[in-house]
């Protein structure tokens, strides 16, 4: 999947299996990434678990769990509650049944957004910098803080720059096959109005899987992050081409 970290890094990773995304004294978010069906070796998130740790004063005991799996995005926590504590200190909102939920943890001013698009999940979180920084450098803190391990990363810029020229020669390359030509993918992603890293991700996903659900996933991910932090719009470059990558990796 594609990861935008708390520290502004953008990565495309393999991370197959179970990985922690966020891990601190208040919260644990873990995802499971499975191979995408079909011929592609790509993986995507098929299971997501949020564990809100004990907080006696705000009515969570001994912990509170939310779990979503493909085709089961519940509108409640595991015990059937949708909110806990005084003035809904913790609240789960079902925005669209089976497709979109939000979890608000008010005593740590944190919002989590989970969507199911196609068979896979998108995840977004907004958390105070103080809490994020409390685990900085901790080797167990999760992908959102540390990014993906180096050996799990895919150089998506190189992939985007080089694969589109080699479509005819890729049959023997079983690692990452191209399911859609880059030019077609670019057209679809431009039309979807995704930009910058989300444009890269959109084109990458179409090229690797051919599944247009990932276009919507990239668009939703961008919209969610803008909703969580509207100021992000100011830092957008609105880039929808790969000239920079072609120049760097084209040869």
């Amino acid at each position, binding site marked *: 999947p594609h990861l935008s970290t708390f520290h502004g890094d953008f990565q495309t990773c393999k991370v197959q299996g179970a990985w922690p995304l966020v891990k601190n004294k208040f919260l644990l978010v873990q995802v499971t990434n499975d191979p995408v069906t079909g011929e592609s070796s790509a993986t995507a998130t098929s299971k997501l678990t949020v564990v809100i740790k004990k907080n006696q004063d705000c009515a969570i005991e001994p912990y509170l769990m939310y779990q979503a799996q493909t085709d089961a995005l519940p509108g409640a926590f595991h*015990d059937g509650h949708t909110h806990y504590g005084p003035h809904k200190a913790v609240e789960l909102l079902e925005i669209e049944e089976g497709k979109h939920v939000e979890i608000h943890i008010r005593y740590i001013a944190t919002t989590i957004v989970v969507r199911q698009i196609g068979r896979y999940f998108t995840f977004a979180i907004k958390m*105070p910098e103080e809490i994020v920084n409390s685990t900085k450098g901790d080797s167990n803190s999760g992908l959102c803080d540390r990014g993906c391990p180096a050996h799990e990363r895919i150089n998506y810029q190189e992939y985007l720059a080089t694969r589109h020229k080699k479509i005819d020669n890729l049959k023997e390359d079983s690692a990452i096959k191209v399911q859609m030509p880059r030019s077609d993918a670019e057209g679809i992603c431009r039309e979807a109005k995704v930009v910058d890293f989300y444009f890269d991700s*959109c084109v990458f996903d179409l090229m690797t899987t051919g599944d247009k659900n990932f276009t919507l996933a990239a668009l939703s991910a961008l919209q969610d992050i803008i909703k969580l932090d509207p100021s992000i719009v100011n830092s957008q470059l609105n880039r929808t081409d790969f000239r920079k990558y072609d120049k760097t990796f084209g040869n």
Partner: protein
Amino acid sequence: CDIDTCAKQFQRLQSVENGVMGPDKECITLRTYWNCIKKKVRDCKGDLNYLTVRTGVKNRMGQNNCSKNGRTLGPEDEKTSVPTIPSVCSYHGKKVYKHCGLFGD
């Protein structure tokens, strides 16, 4: 229309939470059942068994004064004033935020 999975989930929850959850237990398990049933509406439209189960659960929730949004209503509810939010349940740190996202393949 696979309504049986909801019934099984309900029974499992009843057995697991037996004696653990206190007075809200019945409502919590019923609410979980109700949420599961709600999700089947598209597949079960017009299914008689589905409608029967849904009505049954709705009636039981009504009998137990269970709300559908996660709060058990009681006679004291109207009398109680709005509680003050405990200080520990509000965030007092700096309102500077970080963001993280995971999506796609």
